[in-house]
């Protein structure tokens, strides 16, 4: 029985590749020739492709759950003693499995367009699905030729190698799927962009079809990055949550350019302009997602994410990357000039503000890209070995983000097409006063030692003030205000929530970076460490047995002015299979600050090293990110964006379009 499961999965993948190839070619020809049958093939092909990849996915999952060590991938990454949840999630805790998840999500998006895009014009739908299938075919081939998860072992071992203990955490269940839903979701924007280039036509209806997919992907990516940083925070025991590590940047770059895309697509939808730029951003965002996949999966970076280094894989993904980016850019250069803008706008206008947002986001993204790639490039060219860390990003990213955030406070108050700056600024009087007050107070609090703290908190207040001012302007306090509040479109609420979330995140980033405190001391049970006015007493350390680890778990009592605040249980876990120790961090949070305790290994003299961090406002970093994602979801539920709602208006004569 189990013999056939892996082969079934392998076979399903091969079939999926065949279907993808057909789906990539036939509907495209059909769309060019106007043949209805060939175009309609795309819908069923996309559904079948998804079903086949789904079968392969379930087959691998079955092999993991049943601990079938005759499958190489399972033997290398699983173990019978591992808890069931980590048997399942461990499936994508390795290179082959995670690529299968990647493709599964890609085909899921394709199937979603096929199933829900009933009102899409047939020709556009056929082309979108064909492009989606091209990407799918590339990655299916990648899996089958370089990263087959279904390879068999002639002599199965008695037990597997187990999963990296760091990955044995519930975070693995959510972080990768969420991140991939985001990364891969931008393939939809890409497919729509390429289809529009081929068609030579971008209009408001197109933007309305693209926006929900982009928004959904953006929400998932926001949550994925948020989960990743939170996981790194509580799992790795270094007290921080972001290190400008290349793998973090790999996910942050598509987020920046995806955020720009989200905003420029609004301009296309509302004002029928900025079309070429929006198309370019759609191509760029997916290219950056692929670059992220390349960086993380090819092994050019050594990190917990680089599961295996096989030069063939790096070369294959690099080839795919070159093909996708090169091909789409050539198509862009050839076809984009045909996309004439129709709307026009003055520099001081909502559109103008969104262009500024886009320019600064793109520039900030470019500095992150340079900081991430330069060390790799220099190394590849045989140059000096270098690393780029936080100081670089503070010197480049922050100066570009600051004006963008400053403009964010005003932008939403400007009218479309042509706006007057003066009345908008007058409305912002209170927000501006609050900003100055907070910035000044912060400046005094840090005694002028840092300009980042007043800047960051000032910007947070400014954004929040601007967002609330805009909401108040819309609702106009007075008679009927409640009714107007109720009638506000969901998209409006989404924006308010997302922008307020950004303010919360910035406050969290600023305060947690500027005011964090840490202490490292060697203590014996009974001794205490003082930090930020609290006393952390190590009461005892007791052994504990886990399913596949043994641990020393400490009891740390936190007191302040004689009263007990928290009892925490940090541990040091030892995984004998991997000969590896992992700290199990204890965190006590109040919502405004985290107390974070790491228990070190036993010293020769019986001492324990306690590492303690006091991280004020750090939870706000993630609260804000969740608010942003929620804002996106609320906006997604707006009637206007519901899939299937948009309809193209009557076609101008001669426009290429399928007879619907």
């Amino acid at each position, binding site marked *: 029985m189990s013999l056939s499961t892996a082969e079934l999965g392998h076979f399903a993948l091969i079939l999926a590749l065949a279907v993808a190839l057909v789906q990539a070619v036939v509907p495209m020809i059909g769309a060019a020739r106007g043949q209805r049958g060939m175009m309609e093939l795309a819908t069923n092909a996309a559904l079948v492709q998804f079903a086949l990849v789904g079968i392969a996915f379930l087959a691998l999952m079955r092999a993991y759950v049943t601990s079938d060590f005759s499958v190489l991938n399972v033997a*290398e*990454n699983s173990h019978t003693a591992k808890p069931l949840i980590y048997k399942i999630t461990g499936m994508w805790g*390795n290179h082959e499995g995670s690529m299968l998840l990647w493709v599964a999500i890609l085909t899921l998006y394709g199937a979603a367009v096929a199933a829900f895009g009933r009102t899409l014009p047939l020709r556009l739908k056929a082309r979108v699905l064909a492009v989606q299938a091209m990407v799918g075919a590339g990655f299916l081939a990648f899996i089958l030729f370089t990263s087959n998860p279904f390879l068999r072992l002639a002599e199965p071992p008695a037990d597997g*190698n187990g999963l*990296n203990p*760091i990955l044995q955490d519930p975070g693995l269940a959510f972080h990768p799927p969420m991140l991939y839903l985001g990364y891969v979701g931008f393939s939809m924007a890409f497919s729509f962009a390429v289809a529009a280039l081929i068609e030579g036509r971008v209009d408001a209806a197109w933007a309305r079809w693209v926006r929900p997919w982009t928004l959904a992907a953006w929400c998932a990516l926001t949550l994925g990055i948020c989960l990743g940083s939170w996981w790194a925070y509580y799992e*790795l025991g*270094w007290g921080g949550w972001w*290190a400008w*590590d290349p793998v973090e940047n790999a996910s942050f770059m598509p987020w920046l350019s995806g955020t720009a895309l989200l905003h420029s697509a609004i301009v296309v939808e509302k004002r029928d302009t900025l079309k070429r730029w929006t198309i370019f951003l759609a191509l760029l965002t997916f290219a950056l997602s692929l670059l992220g996949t390349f960086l993380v999966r090819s*092994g050019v970076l*050594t*990190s*917990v994410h*680089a*599961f*295996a*280094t096989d030069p063939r894989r790096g070369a294959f993904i690099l080839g795919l990357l070159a093909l996708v980016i090169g091909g789409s850019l050539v198509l862009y250069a050839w076809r984009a000039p045909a996309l004439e803008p129709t709307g*026009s*706008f*003055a*520099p001081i206008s909502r559109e103008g503000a969104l*262009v500024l947002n886009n*320019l*600064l986001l*793109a*520039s*900030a993204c*470019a*500095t992150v890209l*340079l*900081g991430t790639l*330069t060390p790799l490039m220099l190394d590849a060219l045989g140059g*000096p*070995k*270098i*690393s*780029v*860390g936080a*100081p*670089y990003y503070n*010197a*480049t990213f922050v*100066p*570009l983000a600051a004006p963008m955030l400053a403009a964010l406070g005003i932008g939403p108050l400007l009218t479309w097409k042509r706006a007057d700056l003066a009345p908008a600024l007058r409305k912002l009087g209170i927000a501006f006063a609050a900003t100055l007050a907070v910035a000044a107070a912060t400046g005094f609090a840090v005694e002028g030692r840092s300009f980042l703290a007043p800047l960051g908190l000032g910007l947070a207040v400014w954004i929040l003030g601007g967002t609330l001012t805009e909401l108040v302007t819309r609702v106009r306090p007075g008679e009927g205000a409640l009714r107007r509040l109720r009638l506000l479109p969901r998209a409006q609420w989404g924006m308010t929530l997302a922008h307020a979330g950004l303010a919360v995140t910035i406050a969290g980033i600023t305060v947690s970076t500027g005011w964090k405190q840490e202490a*490292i*001391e*060697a203590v014996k049970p009974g001794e205490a460490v003082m930090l930020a006015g609290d006393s952390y007493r190590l009461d005892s350390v007791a052994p504990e047995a886990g399913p596949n680890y043994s641990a020393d778990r400490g009891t740390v009592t936190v007191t302040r002015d004689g009263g007990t605040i928290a009892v925490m249980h940090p541990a040091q876990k030892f995984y004998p299979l*991997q*000969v*590896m*120790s992992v700290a199990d961090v204890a965190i006590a949070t109040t919502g405004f600050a985290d107390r974070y305790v*790491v228990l*070190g*290994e036993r*010293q020769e*003299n019986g*001492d324990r*090293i306690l*590492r303690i961090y006091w991280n004020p406002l750090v939870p706000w970093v993630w609260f804000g990110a969740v608010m942003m994602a929620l804002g996106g979801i609320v906006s997604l539920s707006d009637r206007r964006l519901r899939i299937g709602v948009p309809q193209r208006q009557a076609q101008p004569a001669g426009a290429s379009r399928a007879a619907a």
Partner: protein
Amino acid sequence: MTRKRKRLLILLAGMASLGVATALVLTAFKDNLVFFYSPSDLATKPPAPGRALRIGGLVEEHSVVRSDRGLRIEFKVTDGAHDVPVVYTGELPTLFREGQGVVAEGKVDGAGVFQAATILAKHDERYMPKEVVDALKESGQWRGDKPAAAAAGAPGTMR
């Protein structure tokens, strides 16, 4: 304003934005790149004093001295040809051992001692930092005794 002028304005704004970004990147590169030095590099071409850098090599056998209840650690990093004294205060990664590869970030002080701010964590027995492998190869000390160094699914340095 005509459409042409508006387009020009957007173009200029774009160029200005990219120009500022480029200037920022160039100055940041000048000041904030962290170069990697092997002990031999440090001996032959010493870096500017006070500059942040990374060093890597093997922890020399019998060189580790602990004080301050184990919180202050002195040891030597060697590539076989030269060695550098290193001082670090804090908790060491669990897999820090004599004879094993290590990468540290910090500054060289006036006395030629490397004041490490971070010892990069190593999370796996099989893993040898790539920089260290290259540095050992350069000084002719690489024995290739861990051929599967970074391969075989070994998770490497985390940060």
